[in-house]
């Protein structure tokens, strides 16, 4: 094992090219004139949707893919995993921490950190391995963003990410998808079939102004 390591490192050191001059740092790319329209375009191009809602009473403003409440008989007709304090998880194995398969989980609701205008992705750090599994095994995914939670581009995004301390984190952009059969787009390849980005914000125009600088 160490033989392999030593051989490889020695070969790399012996054959390396001369160190080049350091490249100039990349200037920040221009911000689109309407960042929120751009974000919406990118999210929709990825097969997702974006809804901007007021922070209060926001749940009523969202077209949820499945009913959030139990039905009239008090039974859970649908199941959901929720990372939001105001919405309780129920059904689909969400109550049983020993179950990992989340069989039949209809909806997963996550709390995103921020969204990236240039590509429509949202940064999310799962609170647990279970949360990550729920995000993959649910039929539908909703990611909720709060407040002034947009960055213009990926460069700005990584300035906000602390990779050093990170166990696992991901950018999510639209539902799971494939075009492996004759380039025909199919949503829900392995994971969620839909993804909705919900932005709770009382001043989207203010965020747009900040991004434009």
């Amino acid at each position: 094992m160490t033989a392999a390591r030593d051989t490889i490192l020695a070969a790399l050191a012996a054959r390396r090219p001369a160190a080049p001059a350091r490249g100039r740092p990349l200037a920040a790319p221009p911000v689109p004139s309407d960042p929120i329209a751009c974000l919406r375009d990118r999210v929709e191009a990825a097969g997702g949707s974006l809804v901007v809602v007021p922070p209060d009473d926001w749940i009523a403003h969202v077209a949820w893919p499945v009913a959030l409440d139990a039905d009239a008989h008090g039974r859970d007709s649908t199941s959901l995993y929720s990372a939001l304090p105001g919405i309780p998880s129920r059904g689909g194995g969400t109550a049983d921490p020993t179950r990992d398969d989340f069989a039949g989980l209809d909806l997963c609701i996550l709390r995103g950190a921020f969204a990236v205008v240039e590509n429509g992705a949202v940064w999310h750090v799962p609170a647990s391995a279970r949360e990550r599994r729920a995000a993959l095994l649910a039929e539908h995914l909703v990611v909720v963003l709060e407040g002034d939670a947009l960055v213009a581009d990926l460069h700005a995004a990584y300035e906000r990410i602390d990779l050093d301390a990170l166990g696992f984190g991901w950018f999510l952009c639209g539902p799971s998808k494939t075009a492996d059969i004759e380039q025909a787009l199919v949503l829900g390849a392995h994971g969620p079939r839909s993804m909705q980005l919900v932005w709770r914000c009382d001043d989207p125009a203010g965020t747009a102004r900040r991004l434009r600088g």
Partner: protein
Amino acid sequence: MGHVSRARDFVADAERTTWHDAALWFVRAKRDAAVDLVPDWERLRDAAAAIKREALARLPELWLEFESKATRAGAVVHWARDAAEANAVVTRLLRERGITRVVKSKSMLTEECGLNPWLARHGIEVVDTDLGERIVQLRDEPPSHIVMPAIHLRRSEVGETFTRTLGAPEGLSDPDALAALARRDLRARFLAAQAGITGANFAVAETGSLVVVSNEGNVDLGTALPPLHIACVGLEKIVPAKRDLPVFLRLLARSATGQAITAYTSHFGGPLRTAAAEGAGAKTQRQLHVVIVDNGRSRLLGQPAFREALACIRCGACLNTCPVYRRSGGHSYASVIPGPIGSVLEPARDARAHAELPHACTLCGSCSEICPVQIPLDRQLLAWRGVLASSGLHPRRRRLALGFAAALLARPRLAALAGGLGRRLARVLPPAVVARLARPWTRERALPPLPAASFRTLYRARRSTARPAPATSARGEAAPR
């Protein structure tokens, strides 16, 4: 004549060739549309190429830094000089734990190492989980494209494959229905898997993290469900720092499929940091093993004419744009990686086996123009031809023909004489015979009529009679002075 004869098999089905060509051009057009929305695209390419140049000059330091950071985060780092060592490491990790069911997401490196057949021989079932890779695995074929493994197949063929292997109803060819069938089958396999094997798109030295991208979510299901994650990483995948990731991630998906970013871009920082973040709730001890694989990469680093190919981020853009690849299909290359980048990398691994690949190229240069990390692919393909010629690896017929041409062109009088003889013969011989002599150029087209006089004669006549002509013609050649 390997590539030519295999390409002949592919183009025998004209309808398929036309479809294949159009499908890949469609992806190329999507790439163009996505790139048009990025005002600083060329600056990004410059930056990416510069980062890769820096990384190639600092590989030992960067990998040591990665090793130390990843180890501190709880990952176990392994080193493998070649495919056999890499396969042995993976096999040992699995057998030590009594693992027999493994899911794998797309990794050209494990394809290159022949990991699947190796594990199968050791009684370990590996299921490829990328839909395209699953399709070709069920057909017992290699992928024909590095991003779209089943791009050579029509939907009806996928249907037939699924009827044979997954119990799909006869005649099923709807992509939604086929994908749903595969999803159901693979979901059960994800849940039953005891380990997940992935590749990696980027290894970050500064933080010891791995970044893996996918659209289907198979990388994530394969690493979120089973407790053991083995990532196989080629030596060229290292980038120095976190700030380099946005440069490559902005280029990668746009170049590959015309998406601004893939559906999933996952960052793995190691099991200890994961556990720390999750507190006591972590149910099982999760493990991350990283296998760093050389397999010829350090040798390529020592070849100045070709080492820039190590900058490749496997986006596949050069395949999609290549007029030869689009019309001959990935399998015609008989290599792990087809297309322009494969034609550079494969001869470096085995020059004798892949000596024909640098000739599967028109030197149009489209690949170099489109490459997000500015690999000079067309120049490298030309350079390979020189290397292969001087190593005597050209087929006998080409060696003789090129030797004859070189001898003739080195003797201007003899060349003029031969040219005159040729023109005369072409006039007196029956056209069918001339066409036959000019094969293979005349297989798909007629030979244009040969001029009555040689270029030399025309040039002399022009010089003696014409006044000085305008400076350049439309094609830009200089006028005689």
